[in-house]
């Protein structure tokens, strides 16, 4: 008999985090790094050296924890610093270690705000699952030369106490099936993987510089080097430019191609129409499957007439490890 995993929560069902099974030992909770780690203050980049800070969100020793949403408190810093702050998330959770992204990703595409957190499970993905004493660890990279950043990440989720599992056989069975699912299916972010390489740009980190407008274009590829598949359900994007006042606010447009090299759009998709930040990502009407060793690519068009544009794009969804 196949045991049924406990359903994960979605945005519209958020209230039930705090009502889950109406048991004291199954309840909603905010999770933050230990107080000695926050706020994470990463100083401005100096030369080619990025400033890095680490943090850890830990599950208690007496409960399993599912993290459904991610949010952050960022100090009042310039947009350039916010956009050029990257994060790398890893799980030390279920008896193994795995990365939730192949490379550091713009933090604004991972964390939402208090009002609009990045809801991992909405419309669909699996939450991050931590066993007792499991850890979600992250590294923050400040690649901006404009100043330091102050960052406090947090997560909201459901805590399932070991006491509850001992008392409730049905819940215990459900959790076993849930752990099985989460071991192989987990949220995944794929940022751009083109390194621009020029001094002062995004050396060694994802990002792309689109040349000055006209018909200037740049291309990028996303390569799935995992042994399993990735389902892309959301597109997140942001951009920085030094364009003069009065220039277009839409910054760039893009052609998207799926792994079968099928074009997804009729005319180039203007940036605000095809991507959003973590608070409101663009939700694809149907997922794109990127199998192992497949690539997905795009062509970007700079619409700013007098300056280059730095584009940050992230494909987000879930990874399914190699099980058919």
């Amino acid at each position, binding site marked *: 008999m*196949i*045991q*049924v*995993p406990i359903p*994960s929560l979605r945005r519209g069902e958020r209230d039930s985090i705090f009502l889950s099974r109406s048991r004291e030992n199954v309840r909603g909770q905010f999770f933050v790094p230990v107080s000695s780690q926050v706020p994470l203050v990463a100083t401005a980049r100096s030369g080619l050296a990025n400033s890095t800070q680490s943090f850890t969100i830990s599950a208690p020793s007496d409960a399993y924890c599912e993290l459904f949403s991610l949010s952050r408190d960022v100090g009042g810093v310039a947009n350039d610093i916010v956009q050029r702050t990257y994060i790398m998330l890893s799980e030390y959770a279920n008896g193994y270690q795995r990365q939730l992204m192949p490379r550091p990703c713009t933090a604004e595409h991972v964390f939402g705000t208090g009002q609009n957190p990045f809801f991992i499970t*909405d*419309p*669909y993905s*699996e939450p991050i699952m931590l066993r007792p004493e499991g850890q979600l660890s992250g590294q923050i990279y400040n690649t901006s030369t404009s100043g330091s950043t102050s960052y406090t990440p947090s997560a909201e989720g459901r805590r399932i106490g070991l006491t509850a599992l001992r008392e409730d056989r049905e819940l215990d069975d459900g959790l076993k099936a849930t752990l*099985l*699912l989460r071991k*192989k*299916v987990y949220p995944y972010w794929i940022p751009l993987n083109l390194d621009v390489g020029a001094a002062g740009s995004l050396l060694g980190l994802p990002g792309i510089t689109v040349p000055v407008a006209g018909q200037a274009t740049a291309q990028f590829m996303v390569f799935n080097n995992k042994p399993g*598949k990735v*389902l892309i359900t959301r597109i997140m994007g942001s951009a920085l430019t030094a364009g003069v006042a009065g220039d*277009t*606010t*839409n910054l760039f*447009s893009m052609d*998207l191609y*799926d792994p*079968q090299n*099928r*074009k*997804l*759009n*009729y*005319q*180039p*998709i*203007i940036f*605000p*129409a*095809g*991507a*959003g*930040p973590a*608070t*409101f*990502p*663009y*939700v*694809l*009407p*149907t*997922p*794109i*499957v990127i199998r192992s060793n497949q690539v997905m690519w795009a062509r970007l068009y700079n619409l700013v007439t007098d300056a280059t544009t730095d584009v940050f794009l992230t494909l987000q969804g*879930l990874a*399914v490890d190699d*099980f*058919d």
Partner: protein
Amino acid sequence: MILTNRYVTQVAPGKFAIRKECDDWKPTFLTIAPSDQVLPAVVPATGSYTFNVSQPQFDSSRPTWVILNQLILVDATDGASSVFTVQMQDNGHNRNIVRAPLHVKAVFGSAQTPGFIYEPLILSPNSSLRCITKKISGGAVNIYPYWCGYEYVGSDIERVRRILTERQEVVWGYWMTPDIDTAGTTISLAANATVEYITQNSSHSFQGLSLVGKGTGNFSVEIMEGRTRRALSNGSITLNNALGTGNYPHKFDAPFLIQPGASIKWKIKDLSGSSNNISVGMQGKLFNAPMKNIPQIERDLMIPADMLRVF
């Protein structure tokens, strides 16, 4: 086999697979054909701009079906000058989707929060969608409109054709509006003025599911269905407390039903104390059937889950 979620299926204890249907559909962003107008399109200051949205013929030898359920609009000045109306027609079925022109913000949304259609719009091969835009005020505006959804790229085209054609003959998304007579703009009210419209429903049953509207300033509206004399409210409801927009419509807890052939009374009053350009509509579904048959239609002509992904 137990479905653990929409796309990942548990096929055996510890075995998970991505559902095959994920490979049969791909996302699609439809807009104006580039042969007609390379984006941005321009809604002129005077007169109207009409364009067609059809399937891109990337491969003309292979007909495909497209299901559209997201409406996204961006203008070149970050939304500040999107002051125009929009009316849509399904050319394949020669029917209106928006009864009379509605403010674009009452229909379209953004990528972050798209506008949506309660009954997805199905574009069969060689059919198209006509869109008529007209400025309410101000100068010309550059726009980037997109209709997003998913396109069938699998091999079982006959099954898809059968299911979609049967369904779209009977039910389609619709915006019910007052029949304004000003040739494609909004209801123009003088300060503190009141106007009443009587709209005659067609021979179809309408299931109203949300209320949308937009005005230069605040206004109130009362809506009553003539045949059953059911009112939507026990008094006037205002733009600011009861009407939503394309991306955030005010959804009803239960559908507001309008019988075939029934009249609908719209009583609209300006509350801003100034001249007011008003646009108001009720978004829902139109059924080519008596009201009592709707549950059976929803049951018998249900689009399978693998073909309908509305989040």
